[in-house]
């Protein structure tokens, strides 16, 4: 299928700021393919982001775009969605933005089950500020602020989302572009708060500190560690050691927040 990328890229806004080999561009193209597949209307689609490399994505896409403060995308988006429940609201950002400084907003957006889709590009690092460790940086790995190896345990972002009450949680990678398209489409179609964690790469600030010789090696690693949930069902715990599950990890139908609030309005207006 041919996708109309030009329709969705803002004229004059490329080239993007991302480094050669960064996976954010792959994610952006996946997002555009999803928008194109779903025939979204630009004026009724909003992309809201926080701060960081991944959060620069909305600037390149031609729709209603809101580049907010660090970690706050989910909270800004919650206000926008409540004011305009008919809009499609997409959140995007990185692992540090979403799960450290924005962790509180993230879990509460999950809990409310407000109808938005959160694309978290997890490249295991704060890239824009030069490679400091994030809540997703694996223990023992190097970052500019963990010169002796990271002592912190890390978050499993998808599990965090499930635990906090998100009603659609998926994980993909920047390597598996075709699978990613499907996951993003399904996430956007889901009524409720959907999260797609995308394992991504940052060759510049993470790869070179952690003995990845090339972008290809980083991409190959994403390929090697990924196991689709279906395939994992047939694998032993030993075989799953060091692997990461991909695909739709969790899905349920639950009352959506804006619809719930519409009922509050109905109750308040009874007898009025």
């Amino acid at each position, binding site marked *: 299928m041919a996708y109309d990328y030009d329709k969705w890229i803002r004229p004059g806004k490329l080239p993007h700021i991302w480094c050669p080999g960064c996976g954010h561009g792959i994610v952006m193209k996946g997002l555009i393919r999803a928008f194109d597949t779903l025939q979204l209307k630009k004026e009724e689609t909003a992309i809201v982001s926080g701060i960081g490399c991944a959060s620069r994505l909305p600037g390149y896409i031609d729709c209603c775009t*809101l580049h907010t403060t660090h970690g706050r995308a989910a909270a*800004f988006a919650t*206000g926008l969605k409540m004011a305009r429940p008919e809009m499609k609201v997409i959140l995007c950002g990185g692992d540090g933005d979403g799960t450290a400084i924005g962790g509180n907003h993230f879990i509460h957006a999950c809990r409310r089950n407000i109808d938005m889709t959160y694309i978290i590009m997890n490249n295991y690092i704060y890239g824009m500020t030069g490679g400091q460790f994030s809540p997703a940086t694996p223990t023992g790995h190097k970052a500019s602020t963990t010169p002796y190896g990271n002592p912190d345990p890390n978050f499993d972002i998808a599990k965090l989302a499930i635990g906090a009450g998100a009603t659609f949680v998926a994980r993909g990678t920047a390597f598996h572009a075709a699978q990613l398209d499907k996951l993003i489409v399904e996430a956007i179609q889901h009524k409720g708060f959907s999260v797609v964690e995308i394992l991504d790469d940052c060759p510049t600030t993470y790869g070179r500190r952690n003995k990845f010789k090339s972008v290809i090696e980083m991409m190959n690693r994403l390929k090697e560690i990924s196991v689709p949930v279906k395939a994992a069902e047939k694998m032993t715990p030993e075989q799953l050691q060091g692997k990461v599950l991909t695909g739709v990890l969790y899905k349920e139908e639950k009352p959506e927040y804006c619809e719930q609030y519409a009922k509050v309005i109905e109750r308040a207006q009874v007898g009025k």
Partner: protein
Amino acid sequence: MAKKVAFIQGNEAAAHGAIYAGCNFFAGYPITPSTEVAEVMSLELPKTGGKFIQMEDEIGAMAALIGASLGGAKVLTSTSGPGLSLKQENIGYACIAEVPCVIVNVMRGGPSTGMPTGPSQSDIMCAKWGTHGDHPAICLVPASVQELFEETVRAFSLAEKYRTPVMIMPDEIVAHMRERVVFPEPGEIEVINRTAPSVPPEQYKPYDTSFGDVPPLAAFGSGYKFHVTGLNKMQDGFPTTKAAIVQAEEERQVRKVEANKADIMKWEEYLIDDAEIVIVAYGSTSRSARYAVNAAREQGIKAGLFRPITFWPFPEERLLEISRKTKAFITPEMSLGQCNGVVKGCIEGNAPVYGIYHVDGEPVSPDEILNKMKEVK
């Protein structure tokens, strides 16, 4: 038909004032002593079809407010000291992205947790300089429950007219005291809404200065698409680091308030004409001051009261004018000289400015002001 009258609390009046002004979105977080604003909004807003959300924290409340305002809503939040500190991050965002919003900040003691149930007036500099960077500031400081209602309506009009955050800052006494309020009829107080774009979507730029210092603001979801960022931006909303554009935009953001001071400033003068001693006081302290001025006049002291109702922008020029024929100023305040410093800063040394400072959770009493007048006479 007789107007609706009620005996209500300051915080309730702020909420009702917001609804009168057409507020249709509230995001907040519980904090003493402002919580009644949120409680009334949670009850009243859905009746009008508006929406209330209690966010996970103060930062998120301010963020949701901006998101909703960009969706076209007229938005309110309420908070108090520690919450104001947290909200400053996104207040700065609203300043640079030029998003209308109204913040009720009930002043309690500080810094930090301070005295949550005690009155204070020590957030006044925070209202101007709390968020980092250069930015405009509008701050209103009503002194009665009726005025809190009316000034909240005005806060919305100013926020919408100038595309900027507006703070309304009653001290805890004004916020919690109860007085009779006469509710104005719809239309009785002017309500100004933001200017909608007059150009079609394909020509729209969110910071198009060909329309003046306050460009029209479209709403997301209304057929217009554009980009909003907290970075220094160009007229089309996209980020830039071009020196000339950044300089011009920063200057415009401040100028749109500074150049319209006459429209925004509001103050009251009481027995100023022949006054030798002028008390500069606002909020509940101005009520102690008025009591003291009356008592002083009875004792033959020529006292007057200058009461800012808009604290930012501060009515500097008028106070400078008054200072040329004033022997002494006194600034009673529930802070350690924040208002005193502002007065000193605008009267060019024309008269001494004495302070009476309370940060003990007690109001400045009329007696203290009267005694000070006798002392400096």
